[in-house]
């Protein structure tokens, strides 16, 4: 073990890995927020709550139905996506034509409801969720021990992020989506059902949050408030990256996770606030965000 600046490489790489994992969650969540913002022009405050519902979904599937992690990885996003589509159809759609801030207030209320209900039944403590058998154990890389599950989370979320980017930027469906973002009225005139596309987009965005929740369940435990503070950091990530570009959200997410990990090693007192400090600096230097377009 070679000490570096008085810090063992073991600790350094361990924290960097944790940082990358947090970065993966930031990326998945901010990606969902960016996709939703593009179509609906609202910031989905319920995103953190739905991330938590995704994790709870995995917990219920395992403990009530005996369905393991791999089923949860598919079913949980579908369930939460469907829930999201119901929310969009019954509530968010009524806010069309109003100030976008009403969308923020509505989803904030939804987040309070969802988190409050789960807190009533499960308190504030965490419920354990075991790492799937196939991914237990780890690999010794010589300079550090790499748990298999953690490498899986990083690789899998990277694949999901890039697949989303590919779908939006390179496919025909993505082209419709981008066109509807720019000018919904014109796209409708071409015979494309834009309201349905909006509903599906919202469902897809929150399904990404649920997926992140399932991935997080074995690492962070399943807690009713697991998304409450987390989403505020994700908001800061979104401000830093700007919501203009899909690839931008992904890069910013992973990058900030890494920076947070580094801060935990070199100056642990600031690890909670480093993302907010970076946000303040970015606002001073480039108010539109690193990848954002000026409105």
């Amino acid at each position: 073990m070679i000490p570096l600046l008085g810090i063992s490489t073991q600790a350094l790489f361990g924290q960097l890995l944790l940082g990358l994992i947090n970065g993966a969650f930031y990326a998945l969540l901010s990606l969902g927020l960016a996709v939703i913002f593009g179509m609906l022009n609202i910031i989905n405050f319920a995103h953190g709550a739905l991330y938590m519902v995704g994790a709870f979904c995995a917990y219920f599937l395992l403990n009530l139905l005996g369905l393991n992690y791999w089923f949860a990885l598919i079913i949980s996003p579908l369930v939460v996506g469907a829930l999201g589509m119901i929310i969009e159809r019954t509530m968010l759609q009524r806010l069309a034509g109003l100030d976008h801030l009403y969308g923020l207030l509505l989803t904030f209320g939804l987040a309070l409801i969802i988190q409050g209900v789960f807190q009533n039944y499960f308190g504030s403590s965490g419920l354990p969720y075991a790492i799937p058998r196939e991914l237990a154990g780890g690999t010794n890389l010589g300079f550090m021990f790499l748990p298999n599950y953690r490498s899986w989370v990083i690789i899998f979320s990277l694949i999901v992020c890039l697949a989303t980017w590919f779908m939006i930027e390179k496919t025909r469906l993505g082209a419709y989506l981008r066109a509807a973002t720019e000018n919904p009225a014109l796209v409708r005139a071409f015979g494309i059902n834009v309201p349905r596309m909006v509903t599906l987009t919202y469902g897809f965005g929150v399904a990404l949050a649920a997926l992140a929740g399932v991935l997080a369940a074995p690492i962070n435990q399943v807690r009713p408030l697991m998304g409450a503070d987390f989403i505020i950091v994700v908001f800061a990530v979104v401000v830093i990256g700007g919501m203009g570009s899909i690839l931008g959200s992904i890069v910013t997410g992973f990058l900030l996770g890494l920076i947070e990990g580094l801060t935990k090693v070199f100056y642990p007192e600031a690890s909670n606030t480093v993302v907010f400090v970076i946000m303040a600096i970015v606002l001073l230097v480039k108010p539109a965000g690193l990848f954002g377009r000026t409105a």
Partner: protein
Amino acid sequence: MSVDSVSETITAPVEVANPRDEQIVFLLMTLALIVAPLFAYPFFLMQALCFALFACAFNLLVGYVGLLSFGHAMFLGSAGYFSAHIAKVWGWPPELAIIAAAIGAGVIGVVTGALAIRRQGIYFSMITLALSQMIYFFCLQAPFTHGEDGIQAVPQGKMLGFIDLSHQMTLYYVVLAIFLFGFLAIHRIINSPFGEILKAIRENEPRAISLGYKTDRYKLAAFVLSATLVGLAGATKAIVAQNASLTDVHWSMSGEVVLMTLVGGLGTVFGPVVGAFVIVAMQNYLAGFGQWVTVIQGVIFVACVLAFRRGIVGEIAHMFKRSL
């Protein structure tokens, strides 16, 4: 985002304000608050008054400049810590502790406001939320706030050397005076030429810029005024409750003030006061229901946004075709 320029702004008081209506309602409100301790528990009233001032100051920003801050708890909470620390550790008299704490909140407002007004709309809300989370973590770790314990047993002392605040009724009328001062200050601000420019910025910022107004300066000034008045509420609250704790800096407090203002009526003069009393009363009566209070608050949020956007006072004003 220029396609949907017809969208309804978050507050749109169409009716022209009639100063006489406002004077009558103000007198009624003051009279009701003077006799209120005969009918209700003074501690509850003082708490509600602090929240009412908090909501009014928040409304100054959202209702008249159109900036929805989701981080106003940082001013309430930090001013609470300031006044508790100054009164307890430095031993200053309460009036100086409260004034110093309000100024302290104003200083935080200068820094955070200068950052937040660089973006608009949804981004503004997210930035204020993130900055207030930063202040929260600071309060959690800084030694003078005593972390989870908060600052306990804050002395109430004698205001101006002869008004004994440990007497509950005396304390109530002092709090009422502070509230009325804050309320009238806000009223003065929104009815001044400065306030008219704020409303112009809310309605159409590019137009205000084209008329030669440096809108960023006006927005920052409004932000700092709002922060200072919230600080006044927070500092008073700490003296009343004799403690300062993390609850007041937490993001859920920022959500609560939004809820109070929304229930009472965004952009109305008296709405935030009504909303604050309604929400504080609700919390007192439902205290035994634990986390269901959060759920109920969420339901009220959703209901207000979907069906009741004008709020209580807004609906009443609309019914009488007046502006309150």
